[in-house]
C-alpha cells in the first residue's frame, strides 16, 4: 500500500498527462468517472434516437416510416442500449467520481482494472451497433431475447450480440468488484459502515447484486451460443430442452438487474433532498435496511415477469406476495424522503426539482408495478402498453432523472463552475412535461388492450399514440438542451465554492471545486 500512496504523491506535482493518452491510459478515478459519464451520455443519445424512430413510426396507425423488421431491431437495440449502455455506465461513472471522495480514499482500490472495465465498453457497444450493418440485420428479438426467438429464429448477428453481452458483463463485474474492494478496505479511519453516505451504501448493495447476477446473464447467453452453434438443446423442445427455462434464467438475472438500475438512484436522491431541505436525512438506518431488504427480495420475485407461462397456483401466489412485499421497504424510503422535506427550508434548484419529481413519478411507477403484481390482473395487462408505461416510469423519471439530478448537483464539484440555473430549470420543466405526456397515456392505451412491440396498432389507439409521440419528441429535444448546458458548464461559468450548496454535507464538499486531480492522499479525519 505504501508504494501506491507514494506514486500518487509523485503524480500530485505534475497532474494529469496531456492529450489523448491521458484518457486511454488513465487510472485516475475522476478521469475514468468522466469517461463513463460521457460514454453513457453518447449511448443515451443513440438509444434516444432509436426511441424517436419507434415513436415516429407509432405517430399514426399503419406503416409509414420504417419496415417492420427494422422497427423490431430499433426496439431491441433501444432497450439494450438504454439498460446496459446508458443507465448502468452512468451509475458506474458516478460511483467512480464519488465513492472514493465520499469515503475519504485516494482512488479506487484497483485502478488498472478500473481502466480496463471502462475501455471494454466501447468495444462491446461497437460490436452491438455494428450488427445494424450486417446481413440479416441487428438483433430483432426484444431486449429480453427470449428463446427460441433469439436462438432458432434469430438473425446471424445474434452471435455478435452474445459476444457483446459477454464483454459488457465482464466490464460490469470488474467495476463492481472494484467498488466493493474500495468500500470495504479503503474507508478513512472513523468512517464506520453505518456512517457511510447513502450513495456509497446504495452502490455497495448494487455491486453485490451485480456480482450475483451478471454471471447468470453470461450463463444464459452462453447457453444460447451453445444451442445455436454446438448442437445442445438447453432451450430447444425438440431436443428435450425447454424455452420456459430461458425465461426463468433470464429473469433470475433480470429482476435484480431492475434494482441495480434504481438503488444508486435512491442514494443520489437521499443526498439531494437532504441538502436542499437543509435538514439531516430522516431515518438513515431505515434507509440502509430498506435497500438491503429490497436487494434480498429481488432474488425471489423473478417469476412475476412470466405469470402467463403456466405456473401452479401456489407459485403464482408466492411470487405475487413476495412482489407486493417489496412495496414495504420502498414505502419506507418514500416516507423518509417526504419526512426529510417536511418542515425543511426548501429551495428549488434544478437538482432538487429533479429529485422531487423522482419521488413523485417513481412512486407512480411503483404503484403500477403493484397493479401488475396481482396475478389475475397481470393476465390482462401482460405484454400491453401498460407494462411499457410502468417500466418507463421507473426508468426514465426514475433512474434517468436521478442521474440528471446527480449531474446538476455534483457538476460544480467536477468542473469548478456553476451551471446556468435558469437553463437547468428550463431543461427540468421540458423533461418533466415531455416524460409525462409520453408515458402517461400509455397506461390508458395499455389498459384498453394495445399490445407492446408491434409497429402498427388498431385505430382506436390512434389519438393517444399521437400525443405520446409528441411528448417523446419534446423529451428528446430537451436532452439536446441538457447536452448544451453541460458543455457550457465545462467551458466556464460562475466559480463554485468548495461547499457549493448551503446545506451540503460530506467529504466531497470539503475539497476544492473543481476537485483536485488527487484527493485524500492522506486520509481525512471523520467524526
Amino acid at each position, binding site marked *: 500500500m505504501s508504494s501506491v500512496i507514494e506514486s500518487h504523491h509523485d503524480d500530485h506535482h505534475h497532474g494529469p498527462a496531456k492529450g489523448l493518452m491521458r484518457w486511454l491510459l488513465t487510472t485516475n478515478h475522476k478521469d475514468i468517472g468522466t469517461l463513463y459519464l460521457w460514454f453513457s451520455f453518447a449511448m443515451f443519445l443513440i438509444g434516444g434516437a432509436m426511441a424517436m424512430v419507434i415513436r415516429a413510426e407509432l405517430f399514426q396507425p399503419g406503416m409509414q416510416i420504417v419496415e417492420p423488421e427494422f422497427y423490431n431491431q430499433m426496439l431491441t437495440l433501444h432497450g439494450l442500449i438504454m439498460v446496459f449502455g446508458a443507465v448502468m455506465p452512468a451509475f458506474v461513472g458516478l460511483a467512480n467520481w464519488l465513492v472514493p471522495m465520499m469515503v475519504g480514499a485516494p482512488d479506487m482500490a484497483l485502478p488498472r482494472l478500473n481502466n480496463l472495465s471502462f475501455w471494454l465498453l466501447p468495444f462491446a457497444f461497437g460490436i452491438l451497433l455494428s450488427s445494424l450493418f450486417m446481413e440479416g440485420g441487428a438483433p430483432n428479438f426484444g431486449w429480453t431475447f427470449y428463446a427460441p426467438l433469439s436462438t432458432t429464429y434469430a438473425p446471424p448477428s445474434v452471435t455478435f450480440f452474445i459476444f457483446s453481452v459477454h464483454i459488457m458483463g465482464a466490464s460490469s463485474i470488474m467495476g463492481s468488484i472494484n467498488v466493493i474492494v474500495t468500500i470495504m478496505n479503503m474507508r478513512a479511519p472513523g468512517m464506520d459502515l453505518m456512517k457511510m453516505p447513502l450513495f456509497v451504501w446504495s452502490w455497495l448493495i448494487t455491486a453485490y447484486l451485480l456480482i*450475483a*447476477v451478471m*454471471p447468470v446473464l453470461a450463463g444464459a447467453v452462453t447457453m444460447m451460443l451453445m444451442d445455436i452453434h454446438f448442437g445442445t438443446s438447453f432451450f430447444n423442445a425438440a431436443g428435450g430442452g425447454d424455452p420456459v427455462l430461458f425465461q426463468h434464467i433470464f429473469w433470475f438475472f433480470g429482476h435484480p438487474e431492475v434494482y441495480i438500475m434504481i438503488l444508486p438512484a435512491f442514494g443520489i436522491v437521499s443526498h439531494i433532498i437532504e441538502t436542499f431541505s437543509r435538514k439531516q436525512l430522516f431515518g438513515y438506518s431505515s434507509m440502509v435496511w430498506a435497500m438491503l431488504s429490497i436487494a434480498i427480495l429481488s432474488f425471489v420475485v423473478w417469476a412475476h415477469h412470466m405469470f402467463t407461462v403456466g405456473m*401452479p397456483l401456489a407459485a403464482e401466489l408466492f411470487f405475487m406476495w413476495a412482489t407486493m412485499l417489496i412495496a414495504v421497504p420502498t414505502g419506507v424510503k418514500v416516507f423518509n424522503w417526504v419526512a426529510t422535506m417536511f418542515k425543511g427550508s426548501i429551495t428549488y434548484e434544478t437538482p432538487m426539482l429533479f429529485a422531487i419529481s423522482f419521488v413523485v413519478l417513481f412512486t407512480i411507477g411503483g404503484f403500477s408495478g403493484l397493479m401488475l403484481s396481482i396475478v389475475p390482473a397481470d393476465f390482462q395487462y401482460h405484454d400491453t402498453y401498460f407494462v411499457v408505461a410502468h417500466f418507463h416510469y421507473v426508468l426514465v423519471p426514475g433512474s434517468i432523472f436521478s442521474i440528471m439530478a446527480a449531474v446538476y448537483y455534483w457538476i460544480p464539484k467536477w468542473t469548478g463552475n456553476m451551471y446556468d440555473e435558469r437553463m437547468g430549470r428550463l431543461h427540468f420543466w421540458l423533461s418533466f412535461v415531455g416524460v409525462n405526456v409520453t408515458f402517461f397515456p400509455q397506461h390508458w392505451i395499455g389498459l384498453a388492450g394495445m399490445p407492446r412491440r408491434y409497429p402498427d396498432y388498431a385505430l382506436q389507439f390512434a389519438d393517444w399514440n399521437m400525443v405520446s409521440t409528441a411528448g417523446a419528441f419534446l423529451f428528446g429535444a430537451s436532452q439536446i438542451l441538457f447536452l448544451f448546458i453541460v458543455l457550457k458548464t465545462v467551458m466556464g461559468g460562475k466559480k463554485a465554492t468548495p461547499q457549493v450548496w448551503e446545506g451540503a454535507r460530506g467529504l466531497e464538499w470539503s475539497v476544492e471545486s473543481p476537485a483536485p486531480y488527487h484527493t485524500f492522499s492522506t486520509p481525512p479525519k471523520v467524526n
Partner: protein
Amino acid sequence: MNNSAKRTLKYLSLAVFGMFFFSFALVPLYDVFCEVTGLNGKISQSEEGTSYESNTGRDLTIQFVSHNAEQMPWVFKPSEKIMKVKTGKYSNATFFVKNNTDKPMTARAVPSVAPSNANEYLKKLECFCFEEQFLAPGEEALLPVRFIFDSNMPESINNVALSYTIFDITNYNDMEMAHHDGR
C-alpha cells in the same frame, strides 16, 4: 494493495465463478422441480410394480390435441379426438403419423397436459413420446399411448387434454452427430 483488499478480491472473484456455474446448475434444478411438481408435461414413466388400477374409478373426458412444430411437414393427428375413460383403468389411444415428404425423417413428440394439476395423477405405461420416431419417405404409422389416471385425482378435474407437439429433429441429430464425430 493490502492483504484485506486481496482477500476481498479473492472472495468476490470466487463468487463470480460460483454464480456462473450456478446458472448452469439451474438447468437440472429446473428439471427436478418440474418432475417433483409434475409441471410442464415432464412426467416420468409409471413406476414398475406399482398398481394404479382400482374399481372405484369415475368418468373422465380426455381430449387429444396434436400440433406440428413450425416447418414440420408430417401429417400428425389423433385417431380419436375425444375419449371417455374411467380413472383407475388402463386406456389406449393412437395417433396417426405420415411422412409425406420424399426423404427419411426423424421426429420427436413433446407432451403437455392441461390442466397442469392433472399431471401428477397421469401415468403413462407406454408412449410414443418416450422415443424418437423414424419414418421412411411416404411411410405411415399408428403411434400408441397407454395411460391410466390415478383414481385419487381431485373431483374438480373432469376434463383433461393430452397435447403433443411433433418436432423435426432429422437435421438436429445430424448436427449433434457431426459435432461428436468432430471431436
